[in-house]
């Protein structure tokens, strides 16, 4: 049946796209394919992937979290300001702040029945403002003693960049939560058919809030990683990360309308975005001009991944 073939095509399209992109960039710039460049690419992808896998949970429920970029920046500021006093606990504090902001955004969405894009847009504004205020609008560079605490984030370990190892651990964790826990099943059910999930006794509101908590905590973790890589915290550190993160989720084949998707797909999507980014830099495209392409890619990916016959009205 052609419908099934289209469905199968849809599923393998992201992986095929990734392979083709790697080959194209490799053909243009053979040095791209040497292992060191690829490892660099992987470590550059890690932050984007962590950001994207968190928001994947919310997107699976059919919602969206627009506060992740602001949360990541704020987390970097929290680390930079507190690592002196708290040491390693500053990382925990940052991630806890992420979970808290996700919880508040989730409650605003579920309890006050505000559409998630509005609720998280507002939360994002609050977080961005907070980061600017507490940092006095400055980027805070970590001193030598403080840098001792960020060694676990950067540099190679047994020849592998630590970002890649952290990313892999989070991949394993997020994938397990998504595929193997009742929560993972519930959010897929909510995304694919909220009314049926509700009638089946699923505590829909609670599951959604948990998804936002995960998204916030992952965003904060991404901010911690950024702070570690750049040895600084800044209220604008993660700017221009929101669009690529959501693009990564959708390019990987997770439906923006919810119900269908996985963390592995988000990984593929994040790699695609990363390869495109690196490829463009290789070719010499202005870094700000890249946003133009990500915007276009997002629209294209949503258009390809949604089966419009199943969705009569899109708002």
């Amino acid at each position, binding site marked *: 049946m052609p419908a099934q073939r289209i469905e199968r095509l849809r599923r393998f399209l992201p992986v095929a796209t990734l392979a083709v992109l790697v080959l194209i960039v490799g053909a243009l710039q053979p040095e791209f394919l040497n292992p060191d460049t690829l490892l660099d690419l992987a470590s550059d992808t890690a932050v984007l992937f962590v950001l994207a896998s968190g928001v994947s949970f919310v997107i699976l429920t059919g919602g969206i979290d627009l506060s992740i970029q602001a949360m990541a920046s704020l987390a970097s500021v929290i680390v930079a300001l507190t690592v002196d006093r708290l040491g390693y606990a500053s990382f925990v504090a940052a991630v806890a702040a992420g979970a808290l902001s996700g919880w508040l955004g989730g409650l605003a969405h579920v309890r006050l029945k505000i559409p998630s894009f509005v609720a998280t847009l507002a939360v994002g504004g609050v977080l961005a403002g907070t980061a600017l205020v507490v940092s006095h609008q400055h980027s805070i560079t970590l001193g030598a003693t403080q840098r001792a605490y960020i060694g676990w984030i950067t540099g190679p370990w047994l020849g592998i960049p630590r970002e890649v190892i952290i990313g892999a651990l989070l991949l394993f964790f997020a994938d397990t939560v998504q595929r193997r826990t*009742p929560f993972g099943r519930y959010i897929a059910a909510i995304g*694919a058919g909220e009314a*049926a999930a509700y*009638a*089946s*006794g*699923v505590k829909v509101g609670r599951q959604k809030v948990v998804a936002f908590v995960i998204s916030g905590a992952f965003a904060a973790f991404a901010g911690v990683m950024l702070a570690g890589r750049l040895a600084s915290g800044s209220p604008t550190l993660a700017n221009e990360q929101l669009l690529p993160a959501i693009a990564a989720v959708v390019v990987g084949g997770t439906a923006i309308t919810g119900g269908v998707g996985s963390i592995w797909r988000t990984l593929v999507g994040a790699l695609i975005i990363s390869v495109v980014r690196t490829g463009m830099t290789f070719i010499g495209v202005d870094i700000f001009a890249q946003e133009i392409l990500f915007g276009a890619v997002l629209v294209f990916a949503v258009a390809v991944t949604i089966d419009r016959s199943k969705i009569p009205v899109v708002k």
Partner: protein
Amino acid sequence: MNGAALPVLALRHVGKRFPGVQALRDVTMELRPGEVVGLVGENGAGKSTLMRILAGVYQPDDGEILLSGRPIRLAGAADAMRHGIGMVFQEQSLLLNLSVGENIYLGNEAAFTRYGRIEWHALYAAAARQLAKVEVGVDARTRTADLDFATRQMVELAKALTLEEAASGHLVILLDEPTSVLEQTEINILFARVRALKSRAAFIFVSHRLDEVLALSDRVYVMKDGAVVAELPAAGADVRHLHSLMVGRDLRAEYYRESLQRPPRTDVVLAAESLGRAGAYRDVSFALHAGEVLGIAGVIGSGREEVTRTIAGFLPHDAGRLTVFGQERRFSSPAEAVDCGIGYLPRERRTEGLVLFLSVAANITLASLGRLRRHFLLDPAAEARVARDWVARLGVRTPGIDAICLNLSGGNQQKVVLAKWLNARAKILILDHPTRGLDVGAKEEVYELIRSVTGEGIAVLLTSDTMEETIGLSHRIIVMRDGVVTHRADAPPGGKPTQLDLIEHMV
């Protein structure tokens, strides 16, 4: 009867199939100028499918539609309207945030547009003329939300009459259950208007209130199982006769597996005492026993739907007591009802019953994932085992447990919903129109399953599309009208009440 006049609208051997169901077969009927034709039948008889075909929503698979003698194809609702077919539906199509005039000309503003802007004066003047046709004395600039329901219905009628100017030829107006939410005086006004408008249009009137159909119509078509089974002049017909034509089939006891109906146990699993919910029902009392099927009969608006939804956890009661397994309960969400061992098989199978885009296995385990958890993680092997087991036990015909439910037939979807609750070990099943949209064979399978689960001690609260089904399946029946219980009847095998016994308490 004016036999010489050319029918305004005629259907010739019209048929319509849906996956697994023949919704209409060989339907032939005609509508003459200035005539009101009544269309009656039980739910599932094919009335709404027929109306949707006439409204251009569905296209027939067989047969043809003739408009003033010419065959036509209606490609959509807008196309039907262009051909002079208007509709007044039970679910009103008016947008409440717009004014009455805006609603009347919604989608047809072009007639009043000059240089890209709407000339509101012209539009409202025209709307006022339409309102005058139905003798509604409201200002066309009134916000629709500020009108009462009956007036809105008149506005709908006025909107349909705008086709007079737009369409060539004779006007046909479909009235689909227009009275179901109106008071008697409002109904009288609506009927008076319809009679007065007969010179302008011919009407097809669908209603489950048979007395109204007889009062308003000139002729009546009776439908059953997708076919027209009788056509008769309204004058001289009576409700009883019409009803027996609708039901048609001789009541075959075995259709409902009556020989498998066992006496219920004595233990009460659920009891309602003077249960009430403002605006829906009041003072409703009954006891449900293990192994019993308790049917609730009543028409739309009787309150039985709301009682069902209360027990399923959707609409909390605000008066009286609800006791489930000896504990007083008040459910504020379905999750709480599920925790008490209640499973709800909704009439909206495709939206509330199943997550259509999840697999058969995921749907079967959705209400009981907690049991498949080992060290926080789901055990995929155990899930597959459970799903395969239920698929085999209930005879679900599916390509596999990983197939998504979207592609299953209605009957098999219903079995998956049932499997979900049986796997969740529900002790009380609320069956809300369990055989809606199923064909005869699938219905019988569902009946058999109902007998089999009640045999194991599960209690069933049943609301059904047809009286026949309610009577055939139930041990006991309560009848509701206008939010209160009006009658109670025992229905043991061999001693079932007749439909007429119950219907007098329903309407």
